[in-house]
């Protein structure tokens, strides 16, 4: 299929999951005949009916809890949170109940459910529509956290998340909903625990995920014109981390920069850097750099770009690792 947007790829994955498995259900705020505020569920209610795709009252905690109860009943719920910062009312249900239910039932009950959350900024929106909450979820044992960076990955990872027997927080880079790609569908589900080298290089590794993968690729392109060969790794899975793929890349390049929109402080980069420093201490030529937001509430959109990672900031960080 040609020119498929990331949002459409998610829509196609939901469609194929709903079609191939009668236990898959999809619900959230405005996901019915509106098709969701980003149109990711466009047309699904019409095709699959109101017991497969349905609106819920506006209450995120119970949207998550509904997924728990329906998963326990043997459905495979896919719940939608409308925006990153609107997922917080469901935090207790997700962290205290969904993440722990398998343990709490001695392994008898699987939480085979997906919670989709659009995240990240760069869309000129207000603060609650632009946050990057991934660390909250990745820090919670019992959850898997994935995020695609391309339409093809969006399709494959969402199918993989729906098929996985454990609860998956599926973070959708909303600034990339409109990114287009030619993709082959139907395609098999992607594994949930593998990073991918999306560009090979020699001089340093850029580690990115979700919305920042394209930014990192742009930086690598720019770097190449300046004579620097950059490898780009797309994490795809934020929990677990595919440290084998990361380590293999950094073992080769000996330098790394982690890029995310979330604040650097306590961000996912902190864990990645700690593990790489521990495992590759002898190999590294320089401290690993991190590019991300300052420790501030998401900035007003008029100057959000000053705080978002861009190619220049990434290349400056690369320079610091090369000049160390």
């Amino acid at each position, binding site marked *: 299929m040609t020119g498929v947007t990331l949002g459409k790829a998610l829509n196609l994955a939901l469609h194929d999951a709903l079609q191939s498995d009668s236990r898959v259900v999809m619900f959230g705020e405005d996901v019915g005949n509106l098709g969701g505020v980003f149109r990711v569920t466009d047309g699904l209610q019409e095709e699959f009916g109101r017991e497969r795709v*349905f609106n819920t*009252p506006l209450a995120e905690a*119970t949207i998550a809890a*509904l997924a*728990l109860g329906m998963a326990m009943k043997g459905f495979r719920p896919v719940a939608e949170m409308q925006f990153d910062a609107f997922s917080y009312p469901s935090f207790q249900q997700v962290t205290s*109940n969904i993440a*722990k239910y398998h343990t709490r039932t001695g392994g008898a009950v699987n939480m085979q459910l997906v919670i989709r959350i659009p995240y990240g900024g760069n869309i000129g929106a207000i603060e609650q529509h632009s946050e990057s909450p991934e660390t909250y979820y990745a820090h919670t044992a019992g959850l898997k956290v994935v995020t695609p960076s391309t339409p093809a990955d969006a399709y494959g990872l969402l199918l993989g998340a729906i098929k996985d027997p454990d609860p998956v927080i599926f973070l959708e880079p909303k600034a990339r909903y409109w990114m287009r790609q030619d993709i082959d569908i139907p395609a098999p589900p992607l594994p949930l625990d593998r990073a991918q080298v999306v560009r090979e290089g020699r001089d340093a590794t850029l580690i990115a995920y979700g919305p920042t993968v394209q930014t990192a690729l742009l930086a690598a392109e720019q770097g190449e014109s300046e004579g620097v060969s950059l490898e780009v790794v797309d994490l795809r899975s934020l929990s677990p981390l595919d440290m084998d793929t990361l380590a293999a890349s950094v073992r080769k390049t000996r330098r790394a920069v982690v890029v995310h929109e979330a604040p650097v402080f306590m961000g996912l980069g902190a864990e990645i850097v700690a593990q790489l420093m521990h495992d590759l201490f002898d190999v590294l030529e320089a401290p690993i750099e991190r590019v991300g937001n300052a420790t501030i509430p998401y900035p007003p959109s008029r100057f959000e770009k000053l705080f978002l990672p861009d190619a220049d900031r990434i290349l400056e960080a690369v320079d610091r690792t090369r000049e160390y």
Partner: protein
Amino acid sequence: MAKALHTHPQAREGDDNSIGSLVDAHGLLTPEAERDAAVSDDQLRELYRMMVICRRLDQEGLNLQRQGELGLWGPYVGHEAAQVGAALAMESTDWIFPYYRDFAMAVCRGIDPGNILTIFRGLTHGAWNPYEYRFAPFIIPVGTQVPHAVGFAVGCKFDHEQTAVLVGFGEGATSTGDWHEAMNFAGVFQAPVVFLCENNQWAISVPVEEQIAGRIVDRAAGYGFPGVRVDGTDVLTVYAVVRAAAQHARQGHGPVLVESVAYRLQAHTTSDDPTRYRTDADLDPWKGSDKDPIERCAERLRQRNAYDDTFAVAVAQEAEERASAMRQTLVAARPPHPESVFDLVFANPPASLMRERDEFTSSLEQGGAE
């Protein structure tokens, strides 16, 4: 515009309260409703028997905690009618989502009480398979189990099952957002849920008048379904009303809220010190035999000539035996290998977690060798 999706408009009126008419102004089954309920002597004796057993198990739980065998115990004395009456009112095909104090419900469902106690001994987080007993795990964060029951019930409805789902909670839970959301969802989806509020008038140290303005039972009308307030010390009333509510839910008429009013006669848990916030005099109105679920049930049995010393002694004897068996099971329970905690996190664990497990195991082995 599309209509609301999952509602039966005719069932959305909160004043459709045929279940409410089962009880009088004191929350007791009316003579008419009692006749219609046709609870047999044997059924009433069974309610009595389970209440006596469960009260004895509660006492044993308290003893075990005081003797250092349990880390914590949450007594439920005073709740026997609510928990036993409600649990036995549900069909075996129905489901129960309990809150942490609903120990007697678990016992009524056939879960080995000695195994349940392994949770409070710190041996495990999950002591039974919910599918085996149709009994969900105890949930500690107050009120958060209520929407789980609604989700499960929506699933039952979509599967066209004749299944009702009972969810237990205290009056404190009715202050939480999750409780209100769950009530609303249940009304909107017409989910087959029986909400059972065990109003024991204390949320740890906070009395009900500092917790709630108005009446809990009246909240049901705001969510478009019936509510009924019952005397939670009369097991026959609880049993008959919950049974009717479950039938109402099973038949597709939507949820019901049952507020069962009783009194928490003991501390919140063994970690609590009620002398700091209430006096013995506060308990006096609830200590008489007219408020004791077991005494009241015995009295009802006597009125039916269905109670004698032989029966009472046999039940008491059985309660002693079961308390003793519970203690033995608990004390004999061996801790699982600590490594097992890694195996219960995921159904499909990532390799990184298995590596953490292996590191943990080898560090244990090294520690043991020193």
